[in-house]
């Protein structure tokens, strides 16, 4: 069990999301960056789809009540506090073994979001095939909401023999966000298209798991077609432009249908980058074709496989407290392998 000692900003349990129910109005949800989620799981010795904790900006402070392996997927300033009060830094892109009573302080995130995997996964009951939290309807995760102080999270019980680390931290691309035009491309003037692909946009403070509202050039609708459509389906990555001309990029928790024209849709390979976007960040767009989008998806999948295949056993930390703590409980950890 993991106890939440402090949780300043939204942190929610996520997995690959809840596909198959969008015709019922149920959003997809799931990790904003499924690649980093997979990395975090691999570092902790978990299967790819184990439920993780997704954090934004600042991670919570957690006390571990059982021997536990964790994986840090993200750019945290994390520390582990032993039962004697000594603190040691917890490296990013690395797995760590914790003993009962130790405290994990995840601290500030230099990446917009980050993932904590715990051995065995966060064991909330699956809802419609997924443990992902969808806060708006109070579905999934821990009671359908983000973590609050005092929460107790079930994890485990599986413990890996060792934990892993990445040889090299993964980097997010910094080029323009690539999009496929449409499905309502014709609702926008030539000037709007020129601005959309030529100008820079800024992420506003209205940025959460449902979407990002952008500031920048006002994108004009074709007067003959107007600013509304009879609702049709949307998807994470769809870029809606309401009457005020300010684009909204939809993300994992977006509704299933929407009534604003969509100028373009972010390609699958670039979507996770937007999950990391913070208020004030600048965004540019580039339109590409479907073949290039498919090639980008393949390249991303291959790169992730390479990254996971190149993991190394984590360097051992000489931590008597962890060894004794672990062995005192039930001897699950072999002292010789308490990395």
């Amino acid at each position, binding site marked *: 069990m993991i106890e939440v000692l402090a949780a300043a900003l939204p942190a929610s349990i996520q997995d690959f999301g809840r*596909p*198959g*129910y*969008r*015709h*019922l*109005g*149920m*959003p*997809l949800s799931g990790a904003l960056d499924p690649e980093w989620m997979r990395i975090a799981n691999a570092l902790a010795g978990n299967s790819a789809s184990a439920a993780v904790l997704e954090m934004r900006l600042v991670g919570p402070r957690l006390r571990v009540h059982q021997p536990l392996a964790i994986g840090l997927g993200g750019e945290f300033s994390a520390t582990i506090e032993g039962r004697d009060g000594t603190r040691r830094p917890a490296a990013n892109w690395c797995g760590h073994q914790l003993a009962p009573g130790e405290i994990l302080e995840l601290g500030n995130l230099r990446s917009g979001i980050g993932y904590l995997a715990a051995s065995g996964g966060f064991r909330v009951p699956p*809802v*419609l*095939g997924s443990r992902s939290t969808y806060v*708006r*309807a*109070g*579905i999934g995760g821990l009671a359908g909401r983000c973590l609050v102080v005092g929460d107790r999270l079930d994890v485990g019980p599986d413990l890996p023999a060792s934990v892993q680390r990445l040889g090299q931290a993964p980097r997010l691309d910094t080029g323009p966000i690539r*999009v*496929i035009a*449409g*499905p*309502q491309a014709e609702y926008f003037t030539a000037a709007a298209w020129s601005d959309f692909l030529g100008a820079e946009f800024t992420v506003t403070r209205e940025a959460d798991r449902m979407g990002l509202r952008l500031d920048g050039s006002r994108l004009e609708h074709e007067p003959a077609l107007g600013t509304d*459509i*009879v*609702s*049709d*389906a*949307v*998807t994470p*990555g*769809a870029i809606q432009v309401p009457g005020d001309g300010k684009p909204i990029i939809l993300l994992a928790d977006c*509704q*299933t*249908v929407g009534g604003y024209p*969509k100028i373009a*849709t*972010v*390609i*699958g390979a670039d979507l996770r980058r937007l999950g990391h976007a913070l208020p004030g960040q600048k965004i540019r767009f580039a339109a590409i074709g*479907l073949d290039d*989008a*498919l090639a980008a*998806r*393949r390249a991303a*999948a291959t790169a992730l496989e390479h990254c996971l295949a190149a993991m190394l056993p984590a360097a051992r930390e000489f931590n008597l407290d962890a060894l004794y703590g672990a062995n005192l409980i039930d001897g699950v950890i072999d002292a010789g392998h308490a990395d």
Partner: protein
Amino acid sequence: MPRLLDLGDGALTLEFGDRIDPALSAKVMASRDALVGEALDGITDVVPTWRSLTVHFDPLRLGRQRLADCLLRCADALMQKSALATRWQIPVCFGGEYGPDLDAVAIATGRSPEAVIETLCATELRVFLLGFLPGFPYLGELPEWLHLPRRATPRGVVPANSLAIAGAQAAIYPWASPGGWHLLGRTPVRLFDLADTGRPALLAPGDNLRFTSIKADSYRQFQVAVAAGELDASHWRLP
């Protein structure tokens, strides 16, 4: 002619038109049924709306061209009596605390509250799509004299299970939510049941339903029975 629109590289929309029109909806549902029959590997979600059908898919497992060809074939499918369509009878307690806008709707339309209830219960409604919230049905179409614009000021909280109308449409809120529609009554029927993984949403696009008017004491009896698990979805289904 229907047209294909790419919604990014992981979704494809078959668009039949850009209006709210039962004839378009019939084509959407027919093509949906035909596509489900094809059972293509790599499709994750099939979402019908008033006027279009969107297929969410994994382009690494299912080629976009293969899906496009299949969708255009399905677009020609004729409306059949859908095997998935069901008829429902949904009890509603109208007016009073459950339907705080009933009197205002009656005044705005120049009819009596009883006439509003009678008309609603006499109209066979169709589920055109689910959206906005999980299990939230867009129902249509209402007789023209009942078409009203949304409330000037939306409510901060519409109670769960409220029956509401706006324009040509009616809806039932499965969850408490902000909303700008006119609240006419409340149903004891549970519209979204997370325990039922086979069919979590009671209603499905293409279904038909009628409302029946019930008194407040019946409403409370139904509510108790639903909470106790004594009335499952089949209780509200018409043969």
